[in-house]
């Protein structure tokens, strides 16, 4: 078999599957969004832009976008700040470092749906261990999962617990890539700790931190599992884009309306994904 033919045998099957399961649903979503299809029953007819008219007149959609954006911004920045601080603290060699590092990294590998459900026990307002600890310390004990003002914070809290290790991991890679000679030169110049941090540590870590932020942001944008596990769908104070989609399609059975929502969400996601891949290309071109 000639090389030209063989190369397509290598890459073909995987690419075909990806196109079938990604491009096709995308197009089908668009078609469905102009119909009145429901979850139950096979009948559907063309209704024009009626679904889109409903989506745009529905304050719930705008609300979900705002809340998801707030969630992404807050989660990513808290995780970045905490993760970077952790990386700076754990940077130096000490006994038991490998063990501690592994222990710290475990949460990000766990299933958000399962662990999120268990967090309900930890956060329970009446018998949860967290409030018992807060009470013993003389701090206020909020009703994490039932108080409207705290539900969003609870989801955020669990997300921070899960994903701070990820930020720490990438920050450590950034810190480790800084050549020691730079720090030695700074020492010769008697630069202050703050100057060293601002002029060497931070700028040299920045490209990798940017990558971490983008990876985490695209993931947080999909937030579904934790919300479902804590407050469930259809909760006004925690509704994200994904749980809104779930509610519309699977609880209300409005398939076509869900497709219209999904199309708009996908435009958003594709925009973020494009930003991400552009950034990655720029990073790869950078001389190592």
């Amino acid at each position: 078999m000639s090389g030209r033919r063989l190369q397509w045998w290598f890459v073909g099957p995987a690419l075909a599957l990806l196109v079938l399961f990604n491009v096709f649903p995308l197009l089908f979503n668009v078609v469905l969004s102009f119909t009145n299809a429901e979850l139950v029953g096979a009948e559907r007819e063309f209704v024009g832009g009626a679904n889109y008219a409903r989506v745009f007149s529905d304050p719930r959609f705008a609300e979900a976008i705002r809340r998801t954006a707030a969630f992404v911004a807050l989660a990513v920045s808290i995780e970045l700040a905490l993760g970077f601080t952790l990386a700076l603290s754990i940077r130096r060699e000490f006994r038991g470092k490998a063990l501690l590092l592994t222990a710290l990294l475990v949460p990000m590998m766990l299933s958000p749906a399962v662990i999120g459900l268990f967090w309900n026990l930890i956060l329970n307002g009446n018998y949860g261990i967290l409030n018992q600890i807060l009470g013993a310390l003389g701090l206020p004990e909020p009703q994490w999962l039932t108080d409207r003002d705290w539900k969003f914070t609870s989801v955020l809290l669990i997300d921070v617990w899960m994903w701070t290790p990820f930020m720490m991991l990438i920050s450590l890679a950034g810190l480790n890539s800084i050549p020691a000679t730079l720090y030695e030169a700074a020492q010769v110049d008697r630069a202050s700790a703050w100057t060293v941090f601002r002029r060497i540590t931070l700028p040299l870590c920045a490209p990798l931190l940017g990558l971490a932020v983008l990876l985490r942001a695209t993931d947080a944008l999909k937030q579904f599992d934790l919300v479902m596990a804590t407050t469930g769908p259809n909760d006004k104070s925690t509704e994200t884009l994904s749980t809104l989609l779930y509610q519309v399609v699977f609880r209300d059975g409005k398939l076509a309306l869900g497709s219209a929502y999904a199309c708009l969400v996908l435009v958003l996601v594709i925009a973020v994904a494009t930003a991400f891949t552009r950034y990655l290309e720029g990073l790869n071109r950078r001389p190592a």
Partner: protein
Amino acid sequence: MQLLRGLFLLVYGLLATLPLCWMALSSLKSRDDTISPYARFVPSLVQEAARSVGAPLGSAAAVSTFTPTVAAYGALSSVHAGAQGSFWSYLRSSVLIGVLSTAASVLLGTCCAYGFSRYRIPGAKDWLFFVLSTRFMPPLAVVVPVLMMYRELSLTGTALGLILLYTVFNLSLAVWLMKGFLDEIPRAYEEAAEVDGYSRLHAFVHIILPQARTGMAVTAVFCLISAWNEYGFAMTLNSSANTTVPAYFAGLQGNIDGMPWPQIAAGGLLFVTPIVLFTVLVRKHLLRGMTFGTIKQ
């Protein structure tokens, strides 16, 4: 400064690990002990042991003890309200779906990555970024068309449907990770094989694949974990007992008899233990796996 750093690490280390420890303790309790408004964290065995060596016990210690029991693990075999089968039947599905989809992803992903690594594929860069971008799709935004497609093909409610979906979902990860690993294997291997008269395919199967063993193992672990943890598709495409454990736990929410906390803790612990072991196993490759091979170290 040094002290502050140590303290910060200590406090964060405790916060990071305590939820899992609490899960382990809760799995050994009775339901009443899990929802006691006074945390019970000392198994009575410890108290007995302390008493036998004559250690003084305050009244606080007496309140905070509980009698450990493995009843919760036994209760995992019974079928709860809201579930279609016992925990074990869901776990079996999880293993089946996880293992088969991982094998398929790694196989297809390795071949695809090899093509991109060794041949000049037209538009290679665009294809690779397309592959990566499929990972950003929120499952809930593509689930409707997939559901319709599956209804046509009678794949809803089957393990095969989820295996297929997870295979595709993990392909992006497998292709990008494997490309990184394959790029590190010198071309000289295949060139030497071709000089010796072997075909390209023979060189791939008998020389490159054995060289890429570590990479494939690491890729497999990451694919397995993401299939193991996936929830959006598992709960929407499949409401039968053929679905994975995360969907089982979702079914327990809003239980009329109250949440069966000890069973949730026991099942959760059994469910995450393999992940913790795998994390330890691939700890040197975590960075690579979590960033799709874009950072190598």
